[in-house]
């Protein structure tokens, strides 16, 4: 009972956080701000997936979370490298 309410409240808060990140991603005055917003977006997506796993009582969401964590880090690193050097693989 209390868990259901808490998880639903958490889902609502994470959705709001994702919308705020999306706003920064759209608006961000600089490319660095957009990369930062994307980085935050994938971390918050992992939190949302973990909450969905509790909500539906399924453990299958962890593989998705792990894949997003790895790919998100690689994406951020590649984008930063591109900004730093003008090239990803030299």
């Amino acid at each position, binding site marked *: 009972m209390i868990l259901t309410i*808490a998880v639903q409240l958490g889902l609502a808060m994470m959705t709001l956080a994702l919308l705020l990140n999306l706003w*920064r991603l759209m608006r961000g005055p600089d490319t*660095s701000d957009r990369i*930062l917003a994307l980085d935050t977006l994938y*971390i918050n997506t992992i*939190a949302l997936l973990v909450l969905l796993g509790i909500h539906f009582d399924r*453990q299958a969401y962890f593989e998705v979370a*792990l894949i997003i964590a790895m790919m998100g880090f690689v994406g951020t690193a590649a984008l930063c490298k591109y900004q*730093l050097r003008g090239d990803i693989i030299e």
Partner: protein
Amino acid sequence: MLVEILVSAFVLIGASFALIGSIGLLRLPDFHTRLHGPTKATTLGISGMLIASGLYFSTTTEGISLHEVLVLLFLFITAPVSAHLLAKAALHRRVYSLAKQPENRPPPLTDRPSPSQGGE
């Protein structure tokens, strides 16, 4: 019942931290202050979520659940690295900063003109 309360508390604490990090990302004035929101608050937020999930699945299913530790460890290793890379790229591109700039600073590489350059 006790476990349920504990899981709920961890979920709410984690969601609050993540939301505060996102509000900081939206509201803070320049890039170098904005970098704090995601790298500190959001990492704490997701650790709260993952602890809650680990507690929940350790008590409802047989055996202890260790997937969460994997995600948590990975995020705790990679979040500082990506923050460092972002700060380095921002310094390289000389994004708009509220800090006092040196006199003979070269012009920024960014799309947005810097106010310290005299309305360029």
